C-alpha cells in the first residue's frame, strides 16, 4: 500500500483470533488493542515509551505497542497476555509469578510476562543478568523486581 491514507480497514490476528477494524492512521497500537479490540490486559503507564506496560509480541518480536501505529500492524500476528494460557491452563510463567509473589498491584504484570515469555522463547536457560536485561524495559514500582527475577528463573527451570 503505497498511496497515503488517513484511515484504513486493517486485519490483525491477536492470540489466534482475526479482527477487522477501521482505524485512523494516527491510532496507536496500544489503544487499538485496548479500546477497539477490548483486550484490556495490555496497559498504558507513560507517554514516552519508557515503562513497558504496553509490551506485546508482534510477528515474534517483543515491542512497546505505544510506539507503533495500529496501521503498521495490518496483517500481523500479535500475542498479548490474554493469549498466554491455553485451554484454561496458565502458562508456567503465570504460575511462577503467583508462586513467587512477583506481582502486587498487577499493572506492570502483563507487559512483564510478555517480556519474560519473549526471553524464554529464545533463551530457555537465562542467567540472572540476562533475566534482568530482558525486563529492563518494564518498570515496576511495587516489587523492586526481586521476586519477578525469581519467578522467571523458576519458570525457566521448570522447562517446557
Amino acid at each position: 500500500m503505497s498511496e497515503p491514507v488517513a484511515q484504513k480497514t486493517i486485519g490483525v490476528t491477536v492470540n489466534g483470533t482475526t479482527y477487522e477494524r477501521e482505524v485512523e492512521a494516527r491510532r496507536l497500537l496500544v489503544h487499538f488493542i485496548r479500546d477497539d479490540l477490548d483486550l484490556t490486559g495490555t496497559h498504558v503507564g507513560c507517554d514516552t515509551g519508557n515503562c513497558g506496560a504496553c509490551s506485546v509480541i508482534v510477528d515474534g518480536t517483543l515491542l512497546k505497542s505505544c510506539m507503533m501505529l495500529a496501521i503498521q500492524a495490518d496483517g500481523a500476528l500479535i500475542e498479548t497476555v490474554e493469549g498466554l494460557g491455553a485451554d484454561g491452563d496458565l502458562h508456567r510463567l503465570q504460575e511462577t509469578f503467583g508462586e513467587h509473589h512477583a506481582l502486587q498491584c498487577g499493572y506492570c504484570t502483563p507487559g512483564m510476562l510478555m517480556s519474560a515469555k519473549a526471553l524464554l522463547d529464545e533463551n530457555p536457560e537465562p542467567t540472572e543478568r540476562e533475566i534482568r536485561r530482558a525486563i529492563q524495559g518494564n518498570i515496576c514500582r511495587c516489587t523492586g523486581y526481586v521476586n519477578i527475577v525469581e519467578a522467571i528463573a523458576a519458570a525457566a527451570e521448570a522447562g517446557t
Partner: protein
Amino acid sequence: MTETSAPTSALVVEEQETRPGFIGTSVPRKEDRRLVQGEGVFFDDVKRHGMGFVHFVRSPYAHAKIVSVDVARALELKDVYGTLTGDEVAILTDPFFEMSVPPGSEIKDYALAVGKTRFVGEPVAAVVAATRELARDAAELVEVEYEPLEPLVDARRAQEPDAPILHEDAGSNLVWEGVFDWGDWDSCVAAADHVVRIKELHFDRFSSTPLECSGCLVEFNRGTGQWTMHCNHQMPGIGAIWMAPALRVGTDKLRFVTQDIGGAFGNKICLHPYFVACCLLARKLNRPVQWTEWRTDQHTANAHGNERWFEDTEVAVKADGTLLGFKTSAIDDCGAFPRYEPLGCIIWAQVTPGCYRWQNVHVDFTQVATNKSPVSPNRGYSRMQHLWFTERVIDIVANELGLDPVAVRKRNYVKADEFPWTTPNGCVYDSGDYARCLDIALELVEHERIDERRRDAESRGKLLGVGIGSTLDSGTNNFGQSQLLNPDLQFSGNNEVATVKLDIFGEVVVTLGTVPQGQGHETTAAQVVADALGISPDEVTVRPGHDTYWNSHAGFSGTYASQFAVTGLGAVKGAVDQLAGEIRTIAAAVLGGVPEDAVVLEGGFAKLRDNPEAAIPFMGIGAIVNANNAILPEEIRHVTLNCRYVYVPPFEVPDKERKYGNLTLTYASQIHVCVLEVDPETGAYEIVDYAAVDDCGNRIHPQIVEGQVHGATAQALGAATHETFTYDEQGNLLTPNFYDYHVPHALDMPPLKTGYIESPSPFTSLGAKGMGEGGGAGIHAVCAALQDALRPVGNPIVYDSCNPPHRVWELISNPEESRGRVAVESR
C-alpha cells in the same frame, strides 16, 4: 509463640515456630489469577456506551492571571461533546474544605483554576470528545489568555516581603506555622559536651509515581442525582468529604467504585479536583465521561511528596555520644494548594525522636505554598522526611565527633527492654529491637570484612562506603493530631470497617472498607477469616476492590499510612469473631441445646467438641437462618450471620496546649545497611551490597511483607540516586515524564538481602503492626554510605536526600562548600 504483652525478647528468623493456621503462612494470593491473565479491572478498562473522553487544557505558566478562556473553536470541532471552564466551576461549586487555620484556611481551591493559575500543568479548562485523540485535538483549540506573574519556586523565600503571593484571599504564602517544644532544650544545651550545628539539610521533592495514572469514568444518574465514579481513589472517605460540600450534595450521592488499582502510594488521595470536574461534565453533558491522566500530567499536576528544608539545626551531645536533644527550623513546601496539608506539619511528630532516645526537642515548623505541584501524602508521608533528618543528624554527629556510626546508634537507640517507650511528645512506640535488626543487617553485608572490601575497592580506584539507615513505619493514625494544627477541626481517632457473612449455601463472603492497590488485602483478610472459622482461605470469598455503595465503610476508610494489618484486619477479625459466635449460637441450639462453648468450628463444620460426629456443615447453618428460621428457638432468631464490625483504636484527643499525646498505635521498624563504591572521577556510584531488616510484629503473610520491603527499598533507592522533581526559575518541572525522571529498573537494583525479626505489638489483636511505607530507609542508608565513602576526599557532608552522580562529583570537587554547613562547638 505469640506474645500479647511487651516481649522480653523478639522472635528471630532461626527460632521461628510455626503457628497453627493460615495466619503467618504465605498462602497463594487470591488477586493473582486474574491479574496474571490480564483480567484485572482497572478503571480505564471500564467502558460505557456513548462515553466521552476528557482532555484538560493546562496552564503553561507557573503563576499567571487568567484573562480569558474561549472554548468556541474547540466546540466547532465535530464530535466534541462539550467543555468546562473555571467560571462555570466557580458558579456551580464551592471551594474545597481547607484544614488549616488562617491564613491557610482562606485559600480557595477549586476543580479548575479560577481567575488565576498557580502551577504549570494546573487544569484551566476541560474538553470532552468522542475519542481520546479528538479530545486532545480540541484541547489545542481552546484559547486562553494569560498575564504572567513572577513565580515563587523557593520555599525559603516564600515569606520575604517581596515574594509573589499565590493566594490573594490569604494575603500570604504561609499555610501553617507552629512551634513544637518538648523537654528542655536550654538545659540540655547547657549539659552538652558538644553542640553540633548544621546550617541546612534538604529533603528533595519526589514521588512514588505509580505505574497506573489517576483517573475516573463518571456517570451521572439524572433521576436520582447519583454520581458513580469508576476510579482509583485510594481514600474515598476523605474524597467524599472534599467533594460533597463542593458539589453541594450529600456524600451518599458520590459512589466510588474501585476494583484493581495499579499502585497508589499516597498519590491517589487528592484526586478530588479532577473528579469534581468530571462530575460536573457528566451532569452537564448527560453522558458518561472518562478522564485518564497522562504520565506527564501525573508528574506535573497530580501530587508530589513534601519537600522540606531543615535550617539551623543544633544537636546537643555528650562526650560518650549520647544525644541529648536537637533543635531545628523546618520549612515545608506544599506546592500551590495545601489539600491534605497541613497535616504533614504534625504527622512527622509520630516519630519525633526517630529511633532514638532523645528527650529534648524544639522544632519551629513553617509550611508555605509555592508555584509547584501540590503535594499529597506520598509513601512515608512526613515521617520519612523527618526520619531522614534524624538519620542525617546522627550520621553527621558521628562523623564530626569521630564516633563509630554503629556504636553511636546502639548507644542512642531505644532499647528492646524499654518498650513500650514514650517519646518526648507522648507517642508510644509499642515494641521493637533496633539494635538486633542492625546486627542482622551488618551480618548480612559481612560488615566485619568491610576494611578488606575498602582496600579492594581502593585497588580498583574506587571509594567504598558503608552506611546505615534506621527508620520507622508508624501506623494507624490518631486523626486527633489534626487538632494540634487546627483546634477547630472535628477529627480524632480512627476506624475501619469490615463485614463477614455466611450465605445460604454456606459461602463465606467478606467486604472490606479498605481500597487495596496491590497489598494483598483479599488474601490476608481471607487468612484471618479462615483461621477464625476453621476453613481454608480458598473457601473465603473476599469481594475485590471497594464500592462505597455496597462496602460498609466509615469516615477514615481507605488504604494509606501502613495500617491495614491493624485497622483493616482488626475490623475483619472483629467481624469474623462475631460471625463465629453466631454460628456457634445456631449450632448449639440445633445440636441439642448445648452451651455455645461446647461447639467448635472445624473443616467447614460446627461440631460438638466432645462428640465431633454431631456436626452441621456451614451450609446447614446458613440455610436455617436464611430460609428456615421457624425451627429456631425465639431467643436466637435475631441472629443474621451478617456481621459488621468497626475497628476503633484506643486513642484520646491529644493535649493541644502541650501538643502531647499518642498519635499512632503501632511502630514497625526497618534497619538498612548499604555498601557502595564511588568512582571518584565521575561521581557515579554502584551499590554493591545491601541489607534490609524489618520488624513489623507478627507477620500475617511473610511473602507479602517481604514484597513490601523490596518495593519500599527500590523506591527509596530511586529517590536517593535519581528521582527528583526539580523546577527551573520559571516554575517549569524539569522531570515531567519517565524519560528524564529515572526510576529504577531491574538492572539498576543492587543485590538485595533481607532479614526480619518479629516483635509483636502489645496493642493489636493479631500482634501485627501496619507496614509497607518503609520510611525511606534506603535514602538514609545511601546518604550515610556516600558520606562514609567520601571521607578520604575532603570529608564532605551529604546534605541533600537525592544524590545523583553530578552532586557526588560536586561534593568531591568542592568539599569545603558542604563542610561549611557544619560546625562543632566543644566545651
